[in-house]
């Protein structure tokens, strides 16, 4: 896939978001401290916010163009979105949540069938439960399943492990790996935890105060360290 964020600009609370980047990896990390604007980038890609300037193109389709006044609404972008709070619909059962996005008449890849997705994420047995009775980890997996069953062509995950404690995080990591292996859907993964970047992602965009400071392969930008297990390598000195 080729996701082009062209001269995007969006005023935020303390600084403007200004991003110009191309994402083409299988799993791309958006890495940076809280408040860097990572969630806003996801919202722009998903169509939940409109850019003040710039263009967004996914493969051959223009999703947004501030100058030309184009803004494809979220329901027509085919982009799945998992916000930081899983946003499960509290008034619907797990099954109803999972099936919510399965109406659109887009052709579904065979690997995104209900049985397969719930099997991979091991949530099939939760189908008739109410969302309020699920544990934190179960909620995240159901939210993932719901997004996948919408047959998106791109998946945006906003810090899916942030609200989970250590052991729970460890338990969920394999599911995210399975996500990567089992389903051929490109992913943009927002996080501020280096070990998640290393464990799951191919490329990383480092963001700070609304701008992309660095971009490159994860192996190039991250180095092992004592604790946490990985840390960002220092920037190479500018070449003369």
């Amino acid at each position, binding site marked *: 896939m080729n996701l082009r964020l062209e001269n995007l600009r969006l005023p935020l609370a303390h600084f403007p978001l200004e991003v110009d980047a191309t994402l083409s990896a299988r799993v791309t990390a958006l890495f940076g401290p809280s408040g860097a604007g990572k969630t806003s980038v996801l919202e722009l890609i998903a169509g939940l916010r409109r850019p003040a300037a710039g263009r967004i193109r996914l493969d051959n389709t223009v999703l947004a163009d501030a100058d030309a006044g184009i803004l494809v609404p979220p329901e027509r972008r085919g*982009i799945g979105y998992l916000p930081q709070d899983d946003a499960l619909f509290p*008034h619907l059962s797990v099954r109803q949540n999972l099936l919510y996005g399965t109406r659109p008449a887009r052709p579904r890849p065979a690997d995104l069938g209900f049985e397969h997705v719930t099997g991979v994420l091991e949530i099939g047995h939760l189908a008739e439960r109410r969302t309020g009775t699920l544990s934190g980890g179960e909620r995240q997996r159901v939210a993932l399943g*719901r997004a996948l069953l919408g047959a998106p062509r791109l998946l945006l995950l906003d810090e899916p492990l942030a609200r989970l404690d250590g052991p729970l995080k460890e338990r969920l990591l394999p599911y995210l790996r399975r996500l990567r292996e089992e389903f051929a859907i490109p992913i943009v993964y927002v996080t501020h935890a280096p070990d998640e970047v290393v464990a799951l992602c191919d490329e990383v965009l480092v963001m700070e105060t609304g701008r992309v400071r660095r971009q490159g392969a994860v192996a190039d930008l991250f180095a092992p360290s004592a604790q946490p297990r990985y840390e960002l390598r220092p920037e190479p000195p500018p070449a003369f």
Partner: protein
Amino acid sequence: MSPEIWQITAFTLGVAAAGTGLILPFGVALAWLLARRDWRGKSLVETLVALPLVIPPVATGLILLKLLGRRGPLGPFLDSLGWEIVFTWRAVVIATAVMSFPLLVRTARVAFEQVNPRLEQVARTLGAGPWRVFLTITLPLAGRGLVAGAVLAFARALGEFGATIMIAGYIPGETATLSLSIYHLVQLGRDTEALGLLAVSLLIAFGAVWTGECFLRKRPA
């Protein structure tokens, strides 16, 4: 209860229901706009909506009287439709509708604001258009609050007096609500008969407000 009291009670319940029904679609729509959208002049709209709650009901009644009277600005238009408003049951419905409107809008607005917008956003990314989101996510989640708003508006409509007496007057059998009838009996010095109507009013009002409050209380987790 005498047949007269039955008739007056039935009439009062009927016009209160009609008035509430009249404002329901528009009030809910406006509440949604106030909860979810921003626009220039929004504060003005909010103030106008709140006015009937704050200005004296008779003042509201006077404004309606001037607007809807046969020789008022809307007079010729209403005449052409064959609609007579002042001093008819229609005036009672309109008076109760106007006075209940702010209560409905405020309660409904809070109900909508309590629905997490993230849920609506995620629903959109799952392929649901704005109408489907409204019907399957927003409305069910705001449901209890909306019902509470309607019930409270209904309760307010039951007790309406000031605006009603201005544009509907007291015409037995045509515009006589419980509150108007109580007033009339007191004017005639028939206080004890008024007490009977008073008891009925209190009973209905109690029931209506109790029901409304039940819906406002949070659903047990």
